[in-house]
């Protein structure tokens, strides 16, 4: 039993040690390791970089910012513990985080009951619908991705589609949302298949969709390696229909994984960050995405990703709110955050209101097509 007390004593000592003095404390719980590391890792790196940048410039209203960052490994139970720790022990003024919907829902409960402003980096619509007083988020919802894709399909006269989706959280959630809104765009889903995230071959499912009568296009909600395999199989089977991917694979890594030949002609809704190099001068997002991309790639020597962009936007929103609030009181930060009007981020332009805690519309998405291994805007 002595060991328990010693362990606890150590724990307390560390808890006190980390509570060193800082002017403004910003908390974050991200999935920097584990299955969702491809989300959490660029997010954590982005926050660290931006805090450093901000403090080098003198902080907010002359006060330095301290970032308290924890890695929840994608486990909602851990995320809840870290959220409690951020609020009760580190006494942060605001929280950014929740790389996945599961971890977000855990942090959300703590933030809401303790009254700490919280910006989530996860996709699902239930985070901000219904609107909760202290909870905001930066990524578009799955529903918006579906709407953007269906708008493009409608423009091209497509009315009957086949859908193949991953059974992971992202794929399953987007599949449900797409089915929900398809009717509004007069689109009928005539074939529907799924695959597990680890599957190495989707040829049978694609063959089945191909042989369904009347299919005019195929939609693949999913992220990770699954969509890349679907794209490769698609080319191997010589399917001559438009292929739509989701915003979940909006990165250069996807083109590499699927191969530029197989990916030729694939369309997906992406953010301005993906086309930072070719974005037109005069585009309101031009400066923001170029600056973030240049800084991130110089510091870490790896490609910038949409997910890091979500963290970038959350950080800008939160620090902007703290600056306007002129204090580190959570209530005042929340009020200032909700009053955000026209903040230009990498994902889109945010305008929050009492009944909209996402603040983006469909214009934030850009319809992109892969041509010769490069992203091209086709809006």
């Amino acid at each position: 039993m002595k060991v328990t007390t010693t362990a606890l004593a150590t724990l307390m000592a560390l808890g006190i040690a980390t509570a060193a003095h800082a002017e403004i404390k910003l908390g974050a719980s991200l999935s920097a390791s584990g299955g969702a590391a491809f989300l959490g890792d660029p997010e954590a790196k982005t926050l660290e970089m931006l805090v450093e940048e901000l403090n080098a410039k003198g902080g907010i209203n002359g006060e330095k910012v301290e970032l308290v960052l924890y890695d929840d490994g994608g486990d909602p139970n851990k995320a809840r513990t870290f959220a409690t720790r951020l609020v009760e022990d580190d006494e942060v003024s605001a929280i950014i985080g929740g790389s996945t919907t599961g971890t977000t829902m855990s942090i959300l409960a703590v933030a809401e009951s303790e009254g700490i402003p919280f910006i989530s980096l996860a996709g699902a619509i239930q985070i901000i619908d219904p609107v909760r007083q202290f909870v905001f988020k930066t990524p578009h919802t799955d529903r918006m991705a579906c709407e953007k894709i269906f708008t493009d399909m409608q423009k091209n006269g497509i009315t009957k589609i086949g859908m193949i989706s991953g059974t992971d959280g992202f794929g399953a959630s987007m599949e449900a949302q797409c089915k929900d809104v398809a009717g509004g765009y007069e689109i009928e889903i005539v074939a529907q298949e799924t695959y597990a995230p680890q599957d190495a071959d989707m040829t049978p499912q694609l063959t089945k969709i191909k042989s369904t009568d009347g299919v005019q296009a195929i939609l693949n909600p999913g992220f990770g390696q699954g969509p890349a395999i679907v794209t490769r199989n698609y080319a191997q089977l010589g399917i001559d229909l438009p292929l739509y991917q989701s915003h979940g694979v909006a990165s250069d890594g996807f083109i590499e994984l699927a191969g530029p030949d197989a990916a030729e002609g694939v369309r997906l809704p992406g953010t301005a960050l993906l086309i930072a190099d070719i974005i037109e001068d005069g585009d309101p997002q031009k400066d923001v995405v170029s600056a973030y991309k240049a800084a991130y790639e110089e510091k870490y020597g790896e490609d910038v990703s949409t997910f890091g962009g979500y963290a970038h936007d959350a950080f800008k929103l939160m620090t902007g709110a703290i600056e306007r609030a002129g204090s580190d009181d959570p209530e005042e930060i929340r009020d200032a955050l909700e009053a955000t009007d026209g903040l230009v981020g990498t994902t889109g332009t945010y305008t929050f209101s009492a009944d909209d805690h996402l603040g983006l519309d469909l214009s934030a998405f850009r319809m992109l097509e892969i041509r010769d291994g490069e992203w091209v805007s086709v809006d």
Partner: protein
Amino acid sequence: MSANSKWVQLAVLAGIMLVLPVFFPSGYYYRVGALVYVNALSVIGLVILIGYAGQISLGHAGFAGIGAYACALAPVHLGIHPALAVLLGAVISGVLAILIGRPILRLKGYYLAVATLGFGILVSMVLSNERGLTGGPDGMAVPDLGLRQVLRGMGLKLSGGEFWYIANALVLLVAIWIALNLFHSATGRAMRALHGSETAARTVGIDVARYKLQAFVISAVYASVAGSLLALQNGFITPDVAGFMHSVEMVTMAVLGGVGSVLGATLGAAILTLLPQVLTVLADYEQLVLGLIMILVMIFLPLGLLPSIAARIRWRGV
């Protein structure tokens, strides 16, 4: 080990539980304490299965998942109180354990490990894929127990952390009391006998299959209740609770602390719950240090922490 020492052990543990909050600098420590107790609860179930009866399960998180989702689903779909849902989950887990254990436990060797491995994966797959019912990998909300409001009505105001610290501590004490009683009962002796040698146990007339099954069912119920408590205090649950890694974590806690000892298992649960919190200062090296500690304990203290230390200082009674 006498009946006397059972009460001594319980009293010492209750004393520690009672005194610890005095040293808590913030509400966060109640949360960590509550997690330690809930993990210890499922690990003690494993002590009965692994430590007493010598059977290994690699799918106990499956039972935790059933307990957790019973609390999330039953109040919504069956309209029963969350507290009753805990019981419902325990009953379902127990019945499933009988169905799995009955054919498997007639066999010798590690068939149970393989069968439970499959069972655990199956449960987590069902929870992930039955989106309409469970919300899929994004998880679902769990209704509040409502007991805190009742206590508030009686003039006792507790924060969520404090309430669950006390509730889990009480459930854990009862669970330990049951486990210690079992240890000294005829059933417990039979379990330990078949752990030593199945052939010898059978020769002296012990129904080996029956006692193995009993141990398995009891441990399944422990895991289920732990899962329920976790779901109720988090207010939100995802299929991770039934994941394979959670099963491995439980076995690791049991083995680290000392799989034959109830208090050792509690210690193991405490250490493996606290370490990730302490090790956040090491950030990227957290997993490395955790792995290193496990390896060192297995090499130098193969019986697990508490029994090894106890043997070294000749402390009898554990």
